[in-house]
């Protein structure tokens, strides 16, 4: 999405190099990452103290399992949004991958290992179709992925029709929810963490990551510095598709059910989490730490409120308000700070 200077957050500039440490501190508070991490810590603490059954190992396991799909898809989505694009077809890709896994299991006689590989490849192909439309034909990703959102969901009904495939081997479905021995942390969290680290490094500590930010802000300038914008975006969509393939496998095994409507509506939750994590919808701004914290915050709040018997309808309102607060607050804080600064300059305090 083109960058919109209208909404550029006010920036503050420090002059003297001596104030670096102070600036660092202020930067920490100013950065949305820090705020969201702090909010997460507070939420966990408050929930542990006030909500019965929250601070239990079992709950942690449920919480993490529930968050897996969201967290996984949020990783590539962060990168895509940072380049100024968006992928709304993720949930439909999960659904299609899930039904395809079911159909292959039902009728192909292939081994499940091979099926899993095929499903991830299929996800990549679906992502490549998105990528082709966006980068090859130069269409806006929002429009393209609304189209493929419908297309892939439709195809997932074509694949399995009105059936659901549920007879996956028990050891596989159990593996999807098994905890690491001696703990209550699900095994599947390990690959998630690995992926998160990989994505984090790519985004924040490689040349490619720098290029992502650059093209999110100004793709022409990025082209001039030798970034192949189209190719990079294409591959991001492919990665997004492949991750959706993984999520499709996880979803199918965790719920032991391959159905056409799996993961319906997940796309908006993913976008919500990514935006909550401080990624700018116009591209070019955001960090992975914030997104991970955003995903966790969303999950912790939902889980705690559910345990506290808060109505699901109230939960919907909380999600919405949280998202609004996440964009309104930083701006409001920056505004107030700027106003204070100006006042201080106008009436210098006698020292």
């Amino acid at each position, binding site marked *: 999405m083109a960058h919109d*200077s209208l909404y550029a957050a006010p920036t503050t*500039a420090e002059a003297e190099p001596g104030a670096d440490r102070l*600036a660092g501190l202020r930067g920490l508070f100013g950065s949305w990452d820090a705020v969201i991490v702090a909010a997460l810590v507070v939420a966990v603490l408050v929930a542990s103290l006030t909500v019965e059954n929250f601070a239990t190992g079992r709950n942690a396991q449920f919480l993490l399992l529930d968050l897996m799909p969201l967290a996984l898809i949020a990783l590539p989505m962060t990168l895509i949004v940072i380049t100024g694009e968006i992928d709304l077809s993720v949930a439909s890709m999960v659904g299609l991958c899930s039904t395809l896994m079911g159909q292959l299991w039902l009728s192909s006689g292939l081994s499940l290992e091979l099926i899993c590989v095929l499903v991830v490849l299929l996800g990549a192909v679906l992502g490549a179709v998105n990528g082709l439309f966006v980068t090859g034909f130069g269409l806006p990703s929002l429009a393209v992925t609304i189209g493929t959102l419908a297309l892939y969901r439709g195809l997932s009904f074509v694949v399995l029709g009105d059936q659901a495939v549920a007879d996956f081997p028990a050891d596989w479905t159990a593996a999807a929810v098994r905890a690491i021995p001696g703990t209550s942390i699900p095994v599947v969290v390990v690959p998630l963490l690995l992926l998160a680290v990989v994505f984090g490094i790519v985004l924040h500590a490689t040349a490619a990551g720098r290029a992502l930010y650059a093209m999110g802000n100004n793709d022409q300038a*990025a082209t*001039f510095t030798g970034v192949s914008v189209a190719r990079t975006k294409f591959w991001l969509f492919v990665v997004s598709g492949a991750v959706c393939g993984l999520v499709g496998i996880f979803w199918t095994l965790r719920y032991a059910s391959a159905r056409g409507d799996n993961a319906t509506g997940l796309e908006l939750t993913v976008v919500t989490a990514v935006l909550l994590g401080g990624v700018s919808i116009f591209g070019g701004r955001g960090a992975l730490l914030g997104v991970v914290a955003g995903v966790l915050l969303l999950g912790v709040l939902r889980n705690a409120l559910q345990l506290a018997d808060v109505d699901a309808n109230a939960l919907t309102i909380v999600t919405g308000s949280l998202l609004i607060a996440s964009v309104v607050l930083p701006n409001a804080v920056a505004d107030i700070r700027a106003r204070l600064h100006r006042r201080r300059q106008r009436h210098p305090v006698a020292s």
Partner: protein
Amino acid sequence: MTADAPATPAPLLVLDGVTKSFGAVAALRGVHLALHPGEAHALVGENGAGKSTLVKVLAGAHAPDSGSMTLDGQPLRLRGPADARAAGIAVIYQEPTLFPDLSVAENIFMGRQPLRGLRRIDTAAMNRDAERLFQRLGVRIDPTRPARGLSIADQQLVEIAKAISFDARVLVMDEPTAALSGVEVERLFAVARSLCEGGAAVLFISHRFNEVFDLCHRVTVLRDGAWVSSDDAADLTVDEVVRRMVGRDVSALYPKQAAELRDTLLEVRGLTRAGVFTDVSFSVRGGEIVALAGLVGAGRSEVARAVFGVDRYDTGEVLVAGRAVPAGNPGRAIAAGMALVPEDRRQQGLVMELSVERNATLARRRALSRLGLLLGGAERAEARRWTRRLQVKASRLGAPVATLSGGNQQKVVLAKWLATEPRVLIIDEPTRGIDVGTKSEVHRLLSELAGEGLAILMISSELPEVLGMADRVLVMHEGRLVRELLRAEADEASIMFAATGQGATA
């Protein structure tokens, strides 16, 4: 404060003690300015001196932190650009502010379109009016075409048409001529003079002193956001103005040193892109500065972009140090040792939201990586080295480059490409919008780099720059190379002669 000469009629617009800071950066500190009716007033200063900030204060786009403005002796409070318009202040900003999706005529008359019954917009009348304005400026631009795709010069002309259409009492122009050629500048000045005769006040900003002295009656100098002086132009010399701006004497504007010529580093053979340029062949040797001259629109930038791989070309080839560079791939061109400083820094040169540091090292992101990892330290050191060398004035390296003044932004673009330590440097309008002090600095730098063995291809619309810097001048006309001139034989007349297509083919 030196008193203004009381002889002239009462000032139209007065700024008194205007202060404006951005965070800790004081862009304006107690600036005074008096604009008199019928007077063209120049505002000069180094890059970052605060000229554009002053313009934005006048335009109502920035609210001053303190200080007062009066118009006709009445206190003037601007809550936004609309207020300034209503008060009769028309502004041309340093960067064109057009709406790419709207037609040229609508761009000019936005918010003031002529109306017919039911307060509907009268499109035909609007196009007619736009046509009339262009006629007055002596240019031909189709008022119905969208603004998207206009060249920078045409964009600037549309801005000018917009500003004069206000029939304003105060016309403020922030570097309106930076992208224009002689004829249009003359036309613009003619219009400005006629406005002055009608009793309007004109505030004019430029880094070209001949223009300043050509048009303006008075000159105000700013330095580091502070007011330095306001004098009648007749009492000043260029050297005096420069000394006040920079605070010291600036000498040796074009210090091109002769360098030993080495092997051919850049060779372009028969490059053709249908409809844009045809059969362009030339070579540049290490240690040599070759200027590519021509009229605006002759296709010089297009050749540069094609050589660098940003644009595709139909036939031909590009070789660096004897090895072919694949077409259409800037990444490979960079790897081969090429660098291109583009002409449009906002669109092509910089990522405005990113910090100075990130911008300065963007082209080096791979080279600075260790084991595929790119950590902040290497970038910071690199950025510090080059921003120091080019004297970039920024609050800190982490500041978004958008907060820098125009000239300092240009320096960041230079820093970014020099940091790649290229063997072949293509540089398109290297000093557009750069102040005198820095300009000589850039020239010294180019000369130095040539001395180190770089091959430099320089595109410039400023003849003195071309004549001062180039070992060889290639002249383009309508997409073809028409002439090659050695340093000794190049002068204004011969270049102009070739550029206008009157010379025989080289």
